[in-house]
């Protein structure tokens, strides 16, 4: 009897957590994507490129380092799916959307900083991804993912367009 109750509790509680994590996680993700798309649309006229050299046609008035970073946390559902994936191998789809969001958000924040400081372009854009861990007993559990986007913002005498 008790072992049956034990089993039910051991399965039901995590299942409920998973369900909650799935639905809230999905809603947060959807809202974030909407915000990302809207802001990408607004800032589409500010080029962010990976050119290392400034195109010769551009005349630079001033420049500065601009960066944007974000740390997005992993939810229980994604972490569970990833745990199962590491047994069978293959693409970890649950983390891909996480990284996509983080990357686009970081680039947006970089562009936003450039725009706020009066720059019209960002060159030599670089992206760095790091795993943020939580100090846990055995394996250091992943708490979230940080993406940093940085580059050189340029104030141009003439519009690049």
């Amino acid at each position, binding site marked *: 009897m008790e072992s049956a109750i034990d089993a039910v509790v051991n399965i039901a509680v995590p299942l409920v957590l998973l369900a909650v994590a799935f639905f809230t996680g999905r809603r947060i993700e959807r809202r974030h994507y909407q915000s990302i798309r809207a802001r990408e649309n607004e800032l589409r006229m500010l080029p962010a490129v990976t050119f290392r*050299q400034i195109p010769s046609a551009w005349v630079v008035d001033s420049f500065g380092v601009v960066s944007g970073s974000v740390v997005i946390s992993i939810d229980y559902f994604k972490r569970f799916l990833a745990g199962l994936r590491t047994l069978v191998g293959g693409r*970890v789809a649950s983390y891909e959307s996480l990284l996509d969001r983080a990357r686009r958000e970081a680039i947006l924040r970089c562009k936003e900083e450039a725009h706020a400081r009066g720059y019209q372009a960002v060159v030599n854009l670089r992206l760095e991804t790091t795993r943020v861990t939580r100090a846990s007993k055995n394996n250091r559990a992943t708490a979230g993912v940080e993406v940093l986007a940085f580059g050189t913002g340029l104030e141009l005498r003439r519009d690049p367009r």
Partner: protein
Amino acid sequence: MLLSTTEGIPGRTIKRFFGVVSGSTVRSKHIGRDIMAGIKNIFGGELTGYTELLQESREDALARMIQEAESLGANAVVNLRFATSSITQGAAELFAYGTAVQVE
């Protein structure tokens, strides 16, 4: 789709440039590769399982980046860079990014 890690495509001029395009994949090992790696950790030598895994991931990430570039109407990606990071135990993210351009 032309790819290059240099400033431009050698011998061609850039007509138009778009923004940064990127492709990324997160891939994980499976338990078989893990066990082989554990054994190799005793004896040393190349972890061919992991090499293959990361090789496939690189090709996958490049393919996705090319898809993004194609959707913009670009025909080349310049200043290409790769980055790897470990996302969770047993899985690594690989992404490739560059600037999509149109060369004549």
